């Protein structure tokens, strides 16, 4: 068994530098690598390109890196809910590349799967298609989208083992599995780490081969963005 566990967050993010490209899992605030984001915020590095479906909220998630102007460019599909983000984007301080959510997911998957590019119908006829090759398949136009890779991918899982195998909970899975595949170094933080052999091999979502470092996370806030409830009659 190849041992992947690291014991400190400093060890987990060792090697991160300014001007690198990072992938960060999560959808909204669900399934984001809270511990790694906090460590990156404290690290002082900047000029980062961050690939993440969303950009957090003003004081949580990637909003923490935005507040400190550590991010140079965001690659995302949806960036509402963050006033500081909007301010930096409209003032030109922050470069933003908005891409369709399914294309973002597939571009990450492709990056990890050795597929340099693929055709998709999403975005044809819109500004997303500008400058991209168009080709017809079965009479329908498609655009060529390229794979995405990152120097580091930071992902969050519910449970993991010391071999780096990961299991996600509920909808906190989202972008984490594809980003784990596409990082040159993938750092997984988990709520529960167990010795290799304890997880059912058939129930693992991300095989440990995609994960270089795994760390037992702590102090999870798991903030809810839109608390919607019904009342018992």
């Amino acid at each position: 068994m190849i041992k992947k566990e690291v014991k400190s967050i400093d060890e987990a993010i060792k090697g991160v530098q300014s001007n690198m490209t990072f992938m960060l899992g999560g959808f909204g605030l669900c399934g984001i690598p809270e511990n790694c984001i906090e460590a990156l915020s404290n690290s002082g590095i900047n000029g980062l390109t961050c690939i993440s479906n969303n950009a957090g909220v003003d004081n949580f998630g990637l909003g923490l890196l935005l507040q400190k102007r550590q991010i140079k460019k965001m690659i995302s599909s949806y960036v509402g809910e963050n006033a500081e983000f909007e301010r930096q984007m409209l003032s030109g301080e922050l470069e933003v590349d908005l891409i369709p959510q399914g294309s973002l997911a597939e571009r990450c998957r492709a990056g990890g799967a050795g597929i340099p590019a693929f055709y998709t119908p999403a975005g044809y006829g819109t500004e997303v298609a500008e400058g991209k090759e168009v080709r017809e398949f079965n009479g329908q136009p498609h655009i060529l989208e390229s794979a995405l890779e990152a120097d580091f991918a930071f992902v969050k899982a519910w449970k993991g083992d010391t071999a780096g195998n990961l299991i996600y909970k509920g909808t906190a899975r989202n972008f984490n599995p594809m980003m784990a595949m596409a990082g040159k170094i993938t750092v997984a933080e988990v709520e529960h780490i167990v010795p290799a052999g304890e997880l059912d091999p058939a129930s693992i979502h991300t095989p440990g081969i995609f994960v270089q470092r795994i760390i037992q996370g702590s102090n999870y806030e798991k903030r809810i963005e839109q608390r919607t409830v019904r009342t018992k009659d």
Partner: protein
Amino acid sequence: MALDKIGIAKRIALELKDGYYVNLGIGIPTLVANYIPEGINVEFQSENGVLGMGAFPFDGEEDADLINAGKQTITTLDGAVFFDSANSFAMIRGKHVQLTVLGAMEVSEQGDIANWKIPGKMVKGMGGAMDLVASADNIIVAMMHTNKAGESKLLKSCSLPLTGVKCVKKIVTNLAVLEVTNEGFKLLERAPGVSVEEVQNATLGELIIEGDIPEMNP
């Protein structure tokens, strides 16, 4: 009387067919889930990674790891399943989802849709909307017929950046149900008490009126 948002949702719910997998967008489309006709079994897909979405949780039972694409806390029904974002959009692009309902800022008489960006004003991103409209065979737009300034949202061509081209099949507004045809917006039904003239006055794109137009019968 023109429909309210609930009325629009109730009318769209009549489009649900037994066995459909359905993706509902944020806003009015989300309300459709509350009015599933009796005897019809459908499953709701949310593109952040869940099929078999149920109602909102009871107060105190919210789970931060269980949300829909609108980032709202949800519950799941028997038979529900979680999956990653790539798999989710494989379901969408691969046409495994039979009906997509979404909101719009503008729709053109060719079926083009704009709903993600107002240049210089609102730039939040397209989320999954471009993938959804590019692939779905059956797209219904749920929206008000006019914007807050009273201007028609059913146009000859969209003025805002497009989300997709020639994709919308049907539109349900507070005033009418319309089908997008090669010749323009074909008026199918009027909201109760709304006249054909009122629909015409609120529609800038080509409106096709053939014979008597019935009132909606929700």
